[in-house]
């Protein structure tokens, strides 16, 4: 067995509110959790899309900001020492002869677990891609949709496309690292943070970056790896730029992704579950939160919390096959940390 294997009782796919609360419910039953999320931070869509938006239907909170709810859930889960793999997408679930699973991510992280819990919300957030003919040919060969290690771009010619905060922020950052940064944006102005936008204009005025406005990506070329990015400028003329890297930053969009290939019963991009315990049709795989569906399903955080509690009591038998589960209240027993 791989020595770099992470061993845990439960592997939770998705570190959004429901995945985090599942850690707490699992902890009460002495089950340890490892969580994996495609996003680089915990919190799922709450942290990624609307961290500052108030939520009004969390029991006990007349109003709570999305990010505050995530922070609280993390605090609540802390006694049970969850571990995380972030910024990696789960690609495979492999059943072992003893019924346990090995979960493998896009970056080849392996997690050995007794039970898999899919709390993946709407799927994994993946970068929106520009519509270019031979885009895929250069993915990983000069085109990347996120900046994982800025050093990759040291002394290279980098083209960044987009006009939002991340395009502005990375332009400012990489201007200090790359040989040359060219920022391409389809409009004349930026809608990102005004402070970042003025920094970008300032860098362009000082000749430290190339700023090409009212232009669109048209083509990518190269021989085995990216060499040129062709733009169409405001006069509909082609502009060719030498480029070692192209970083298109057009935001993220959720996709069901590999989940569709795991042999689960899927209806309208959601996993069908048995409402007695939110199990899927495959033994030891459960689905909770927005990713599941059943008659009467409501996609609400509070419903996901309920599902997490019920499902943990069912998963217990796989983690402690020889023990009888006795139901206890936290008011009586408290929260016994690991």
């Amino acid at each position, binding site marked *: 067995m791989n020595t770099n294997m992470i061993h845990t009782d439960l592997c939770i796919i998705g570190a959004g509110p429901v995945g985090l609360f599942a850690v707490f419910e699992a902890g009460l039953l002495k089950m340890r959790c490892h969580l994996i999320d495609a996003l680089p931070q915990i919190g799922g*869509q709450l942290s990624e*899309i*609307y961290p500052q*938006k108030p939520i009004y239907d969390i029991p006990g909170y007349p109003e709570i900001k999305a990010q505050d709810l995530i922070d609280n859930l993390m605090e609540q889960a802390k006694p049970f020492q969850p571990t995380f793999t972030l910024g990696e997408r789960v690609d495979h679930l492999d059943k072992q002869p003893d019924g346990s699973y090995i979960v493998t991510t896009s970056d080849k992280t392996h997690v050995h677990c007794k039970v898999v819990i899919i709390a993946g919300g*709407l799927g994994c957030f993946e970068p*929106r*891609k*520009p*519509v270019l003919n031979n885009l895929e040919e250069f993915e990983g060969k000069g085109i990347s949709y996120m900046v994982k290690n800025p050093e990759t771009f040291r002394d290279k010619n980098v083209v960044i496309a*987009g*006009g*939002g905060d991340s395009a502005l922020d990375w332009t400012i950052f990489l201007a200090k690292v790359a040989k040359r940064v060219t920022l391409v944006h*389809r*409009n004349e102005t930026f*809608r990102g943070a005004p402070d970042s936008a003025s920094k970008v204009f300032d860098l362009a005025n000082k000749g430290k970056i190339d700023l090409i406005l009212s232009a669109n990506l048209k083509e990518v070329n190269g021989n085995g790896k990216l060499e040129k990015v062709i733009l169409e400028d405001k006069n509909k003329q082609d502009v060719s730029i030498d480029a070692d890297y192209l970083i*298109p930053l*057009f*935001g993220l*969009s*959720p*996709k*069901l992704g590999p989940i*569709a290939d795991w042999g689960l019963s899927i209806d309208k*991009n959601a996993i069908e579950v048995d409402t007695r315990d939110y199990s899927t049709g495959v033994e030891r795989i459960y689905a909770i939160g927005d990713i599941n569906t059943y008659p009467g399903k409501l996609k609400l955080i509070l419903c996901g919390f309920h599902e997490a509690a019920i499902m943990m009591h069912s998963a217990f038998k796989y983690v402690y096959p020889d023990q009888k589960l006795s139901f206890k209240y936290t008011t009586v027993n408290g929260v016994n940390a690991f």
Partner: protein
Amino acid sequence: MIKFTVEDQEGNRQEVEAPADMGLSLMEVLKASEYPILATCGGMALCATCHVEILEGKDGLGDATDVELDQLENLPEYFPTSRLACQIRIGDILEGAVVKLRGEDVM
């Protein structure tokens, strides 16, 4: 009730009927009509997964708000006719409009 036309990603057109007085958004009506629209953020103009083009009948709708433009202008593809369906209220003004779905595929 009002009627408008929806063109799906494959270019098929179909007429959709919706109540004009229930305060529904175009996104909600499209979802209820089983069109494949994610609407990840639930209608807060924060995710752009309900991106549509208003091919006919755009003039009466008024301009997109700043929040809406923030999302639209960040998409890889964006057109002068682009709107977020969640920001359009169903009303008499949509009678006879033609809406083309632009939201990305869900899978």
